[in-house]
């Protein structure tokens, strides 16, 4: 198994790509700490992991955009484990608006959740990983951070920021044996795309060379590969999981 007895922390693990990553990592033998805002969602993820024979999970209910709550979460992780083999930095939100309709509160909310917290969580994880001189951080970016999209100025900026942060952290942390990579999903069949109008969805599908949206499980497999030693000489990379949408 790719992640046997590896200790991993996955944020945004109650649904979508984060949940799929948790299920796949558990299938690959990992022992997991799972974080999300929704306690019910976390419990469902944990129940699915346990029902398939995965190791017991530690659940942390936290809104990553709340500094105080995030610090408490760090303390909980630190008290629970002295070892952290991988981090999947996935928690994020989507708030679409055209450029003339973006309020400052919305800008702050999206950047705080999608970028600032990602950096703060990386800082914390790196502190744990430095002691063991190894570790893998997988940040979840987006194809929108590479190509942009109408109505997604702030979201695109946050995800482009994740890519920049990933590359910079990879340079700083490589001497400590810590790898930092990003995954840039394209159109993935999760709740996040459920509200896309039919016509827009049709046009999106036409731009995907493989002609279909991806599945969260397909992203999860790439995340687990990057978290594992299968990619032990890979750092600072952005891996697109987009069916050929961005070529």
């Amino acid at each position, binding site marked *: 198994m790719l992640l046997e007895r590896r200790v991993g922390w996955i944020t945004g693990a109650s649904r979508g790509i984060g949940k799929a990553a948790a299920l796949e990592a558990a299938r690959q033998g990992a022992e997991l700490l799972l974080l999300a805002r929704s306690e019910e969602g976390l419990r469902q993820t944990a129940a699915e992991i346990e029902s398939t024979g995965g190791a017991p999970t530690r659940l942390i209910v936290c809104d990553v955009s709340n500094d105080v709550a995030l610090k408490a979460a760090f303390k909980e992780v630190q008290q629970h484990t002295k070892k952290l083999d991988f981090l999947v930095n996935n928690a994020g939100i989507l708030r679409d608006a055209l450029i003339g309709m973006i309020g400052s509160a919305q800008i702050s909310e999206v950047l705080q959740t999608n970028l600032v917290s990602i950096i703060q969580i990386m800082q914390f994880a790196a502190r744990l990983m430095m*002691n063991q001189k190894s570790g893998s951080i997988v940040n979840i970016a987006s194809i929108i951070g590479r190509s942009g999209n109408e109505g997604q100025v702030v979201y695109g900026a946050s995800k482009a920021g994740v890519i920049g942060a990933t590359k910079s952290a990879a340079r700083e942390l490589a001497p400590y044996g810590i790898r930092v990579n990003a995954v840039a999903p394209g159109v993935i069949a999760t709740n996040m795309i459920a509200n896309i109008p039919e016509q827009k969805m049709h046009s999106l599908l036409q731009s995907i060379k493989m002609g279909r949206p991806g599945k969260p499980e397909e992203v999860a497999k790439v995340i687990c590969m990057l978290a594992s030693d299968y990619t032990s000489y890979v750092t600072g990379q952005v891996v697109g999981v987009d069916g050929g949408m961005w070529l």
Partner: protein
Amino acid sequence: MSESEIKLRQAFAAGLNLPEQEVNESLQYASTPGWDSVAHMALIASLDSTFDIMMDTDDVIDLSSYAKAREILNKYGIQF
């Protein structure tokens, strides 16, 4: 020398990759060879782990010398 002082020396030695005998009061961020911004993170990781604490970001930034480390650790209930 108190037990905390010994642990502090060991944490600095491990974090900055220095021989323990070279750890002393004169160590300063950016002027001690090897104590750069990246090594600083390793030092913080070493202090966190040695004293079983989690330093706040403001303290991480403030920790600019060996003496300052002692002062900051006091805030976390570490007595010297």
